[in-house]
């Protein structure tokens, strides 16, 4: 029992930085994982990755002028993300080009711009910070920002839930009964940007998308309804944060990648043993019903 306490509870009980990391990571999970579920259900899983790259130049411009400061980098990331989301959204809705192609074009331009801006001033260490974050160095500012993003995200999901489901399931039907279809799409992209920006201080631009997508993808193997899928994704996200932080603490590993790798392990396990996973599709049931 005491060994369990020492391994699992003590690191969080004894060290303030671990508590802050845990608090930030849990809030991020609660917020980003349901967004990831909807990204996956809208077949936009890779959009999260593209958006994560897209916020880099904004963060880099903030970094260029103010150094490693949270507020300017966050605001910059937010603006860059919104520009890319709106730009690619408008190109796909007003022209023949599909959203995957316009998103790819915008994020590649954005990423190249970001790397160039960082290289104008910073060292590789700074670039690594922007790309991979430092969950063990979350300050009050960062925690407050993540808390605000979580509240905004959960409130938006609650308000737009019905429209989000309708837009995924039968977009033409939604357009026939409401004008909410296009605005909801942009609100949703805004939530994606917001959560990636919230995650980049903790996990970096590239790993923030991991916490968004891996728990969502894992949850898909266990349930076939949207609300339970979102809840399960949050649980998997929180478990991955706790597991990853402990792994990082005990094995002296980089904390961000440890969290994402933990979520990755849960995903791989789910693909295998989930109720809708590989093994379930192989096992021949011993009984079958009459109708």
């Amino acid at each position: 029992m005491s060994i369990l306490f020492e391994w699992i509870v003590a690191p969080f009980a004894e060290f303030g930085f671990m508590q802050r990391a845990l608090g930030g990571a849990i809030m991020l999970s609660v917020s980003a994982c349901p967004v990831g579920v909807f990204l996956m259900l809208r077949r936009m899983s890779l959009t999260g990755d593209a958006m994560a790259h897209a916020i880099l130049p904004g963060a880099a411009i903030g970094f260029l002028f103010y150094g490693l400061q949270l507020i300017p980098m966050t605001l910059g990331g937010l603006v860059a993300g919104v520009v890319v989301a709106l730009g690619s959204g408008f190109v796909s809705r007003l022209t023949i080009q599909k959203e995957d192609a316009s998103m790819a074009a915008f994020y590649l331009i954005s990423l190249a711009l970001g790397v160039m801006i960082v290289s104008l001033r910073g060292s590789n260490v700074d670039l690594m910070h922007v790309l991979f974050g430092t969950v063990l160095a979350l300050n009050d500012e960062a925690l407050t920002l993540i808390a605000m993003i979580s509240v905004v995200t959960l409130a938006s999901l609650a308000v737009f839930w019905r429209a989000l489901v309708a837009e995924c399931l039968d977009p033409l039907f939604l357009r026939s009964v409401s004008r909410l279809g296009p605005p909801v799409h942009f609100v949703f992209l805004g939530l994606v940007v917001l959560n990636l920006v919230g995650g980049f201080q903790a996990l970096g631009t590239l790993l923030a998308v991991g916490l968004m997508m891996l728990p969502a993808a894992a949850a898909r193997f266990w349930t076939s309804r949207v609300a339970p899928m979102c809840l399960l994704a949050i649980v998997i996200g929180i478990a991955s944060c706790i597991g990853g932080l402990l792994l990082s603490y005990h094995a002296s590993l980089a904390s961000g990648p440890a969290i994402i790798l933990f979520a990755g392990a849960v995903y791989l396990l789910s693909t295998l043993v989930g109720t809708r996973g590989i093994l379930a599709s192989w096992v021949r049931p011993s009984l079958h019903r009459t109708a």
Partner: protein
Amino acid sequence: MQDCLTFKDLTLGYNRHPAVHHLNGAVRMGSLTAVVGANGSGKSTLMKGIVGILKPMSGSCVVAPGHKLAYLPQQSELDRTFPARVIDLVSLGLWPQRGLLGRHRADDRRRVGEALSAVGLEGFEKRPIDSLSGGQLQRTLFARVLVQDANLILLDEPFNAIDARTVTDLIALISRWHGEKRTVMVVVHDLDLVRQHFPEALLLAREPVAWGDARETLSSANLLRARQFHEAWDENAPWCPSGTTATPTQRSALSSDPLQPENAA
């Protein structure tokens, strides 16, 4: 009798090529009209134009005030892999009454149950939609139309890949709506079905070929004309000399405030 839908020189299309070209006329309130024509003749495009999903290239399409519209798109537009149950899909039909935020009440749930019974799907409430057959899914979508309780109903190819018994059941529902004085327009390919069950027909071949009594509309001469029209497609066709101004579809039934329930009962 009053008109429910009025088309004034309506042209709808894509990339400057018309799919529906200069349609004039009106759909009477309480009428049952089959929209017929070959693939690519503009039937689905017309439906999208009426709903307001597609803006006119020229002319206008006006829905008379006070009409609540229900639109059943082709099944291919629906994401069948989405993790939803039959009851979730049918409950979407409550949108006109409950909007984005209104709670679904006990009475709403009763109506959803009744709609499922009416289409012969009692007990299917909790079935995932990815486990339904084509016919069962179409019945589910008809149940959603029932729940919408609209007085202008547009059905886009509802009988595609559907077995004979299901077609008979769905035709009975359409006849019931017609009996209740709702205005119904249905895109149909089976001309015998149109002759048997639809009083009126609109024959499209991009151009409106004929419109009126179903049997007269589907005469051999009209069908031949439709085929000739339809095959006259040209990538480099000259510009149409007539009207270029467009008026978006006017939907008096749609609220301007997207957060409010639309067509509130």
